[in-house]
């Protein structure tokens, strides 16, 4: 891979500390409020506890915010003529996507590491393999939201659209079952949304494939295929959509 380009991409991100602060600080803050404080924080979830369960979701929230921002910014720079500049070089589309994906994964890792570190010292508890699996799932799965931001930006072609993509994450967060535990038809609907699949997969090692019923505190079984179908569908759908939109945008701008 082109390490110069990757290194400069990270340097660009460092020049925007405000955004970085919010993508790292906000999920950490949410975790401290929702995860570490409540009296049920240390209630058991299989071999771990509720604080761990919430910590994974908040790290995922941070990773999602970060990667959606990267995808949206990529869409903007392409629309502002950078794709034409790159069109004058031997760089292929998949190489560009590779560099952006590597950047997104790196940036996703920052809130995940930070929230996990805070979780580790404030009472989140689980076997080591659960920490490792959930971190890995969160990092790789964050690709979905890089594609989400990219598609949003390329489809609507404006800076406002990229802000709107960021705003839509709040809606996805509620449907992702990470702020208020959902039940009934809301939970059924939620299972079709991307953040839900992403977080469910990351929590899987902790929960063993169940979701928490907020009324009873019981675990409800959730088949693995449902989670995998959700994550695969959104990855493929958004990947195809983004590729199509990149091609469409190549002509005159």
């Amino acid at each position, binding site marked *: 891979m082109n390490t*110069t380009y990757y290194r*400069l991409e990270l340097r660009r991100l460092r020049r925007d500390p405000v955004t970085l602060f919010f993508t790292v600080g906000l999920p950490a803050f949410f975790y401290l409020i929702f995860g570490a404080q409540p009296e049920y924080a240390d209630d058991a979830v299989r071999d771990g506890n509720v604080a761990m369960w919430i910590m994974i979701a908040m790290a995922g929230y941070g990773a999602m915010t970060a990667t959606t921002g990267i995808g949206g910014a990529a869409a903007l720079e392409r629309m502002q003529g*950078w794709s034409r*500049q790159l069109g*004058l070089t031997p*760089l292929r589309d998949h190489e560009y996507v590779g560099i952006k994906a590597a950047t997104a994964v790196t940036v996703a890792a920052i809130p995940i590491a930070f929230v996990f570190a805070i979780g580790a010292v404030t009472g989140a508890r689980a076997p080591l393999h659960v920490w490792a699996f959930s971190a890995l799932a969160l990092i790789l799965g964050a690709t979905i939201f890089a594609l989400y931001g990219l598609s949003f930006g390329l489809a609507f072609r404006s800076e406002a659209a990229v802000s709107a993509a960021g705003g839509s994450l709040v809606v996805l967060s509620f449907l992702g079952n990470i702020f208020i535990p959902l039940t009934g038809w809301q939970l059924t609907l939620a299972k079709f949304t991307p953040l839900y699949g992403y977080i469910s997969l990351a929590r899987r090692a902790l929960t063993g494939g169940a979701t928490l019923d907020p009324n009873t505190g019981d675990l409800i079984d959730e088949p693995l295929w449902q989670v995998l179908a959700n994550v695969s569908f959104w990855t493929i759908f958004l990947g195809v959509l983004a590729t199509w939109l990149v091609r469409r945008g190549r002509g005159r701008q």
Partner: protein
Amino acid sequence: MTQEPCIRLRGVTKTFGSGAEAKQAVGGLDLDIGTGEIVALLGPNGAGKTTTLDMVLGFTEPTSGTIEVFGQSPIGAVRAGRVSAVLQTGGLLRDLKVAETIELVASIHDAPLRTAEVIERAGLEAIANNKVQTCSGGEQQRLRFALALLADPDLLILDEPTAGMDVQARHDFWTAMRAEADRGRTIVFATHYLQEAEDFAERTVLVANGRLVADGPTEQVRRRAAGRRLAARFGADAIESAASTLQALPQAFHFERQGDRLIVESADSDDIARLVLGDLGGFDLEIEPASLERAFIQLTADSDIDHDLTEHDATNQTAGSPS
């Protein structure tokens, strides 16, 4: 001047959209540009210049016809580093520094020139550590020029390269470009300033409405395109003979009559003015430069056989090419 063919266009058309809303930007272009030539693609806005250059750079595919650049496809020639371009606007990352931008694009190329050399040749030493967003329009254009140089291309394409530059920046830009031409690079640039074509290009290709209107040594094209328009009034007794005299002048490329006014367009306005005020008995003489747009319309009309077009019709004719 023409040796090895560098750009070769055959029957190239480009239509945007489809059905009733289809708009033809380029309508059948045949063009050969040889290695080492400096060619201006001159035409008014909307003439199809950018679309043509976009096709030569492989950004868009022609609707029909073929384009070869150094004997291969446009995309192939770009990837091989034989062609590069200075783009019209945009195309830079505002939060990178000038030197970083060059470093980034250099990292993509297979065998780029040294960053330091490119910075020097584009005159960017003083602002190498400035962020792109703080650079003036002229400085950003020099940066685009530096990026184009990285591939050490044999063919350099410039699309309206001095748009938005002040006089000094424009002068500096063309000085740098002349140095590149002296190194033997082929340069093709689009412009709607006749002056730029005149100062820099040996050959000028005039396009209007997606068609080639004139193609030849710049000096020849200039003489046709840089006409002046003379209008004078005549008394009823003098106008008939004045009309027939003016109409027959070999150096007048356009003649028309509006009531008691006779209008002539010519590159040789002094002689005609003398004639009009002297022997022909004209008065209320007005001389103004014929706009490039009007020269284009005129040349378009000339190139199609229809010489009966009146000025009025020609001006209103958006297609510009009758029948």
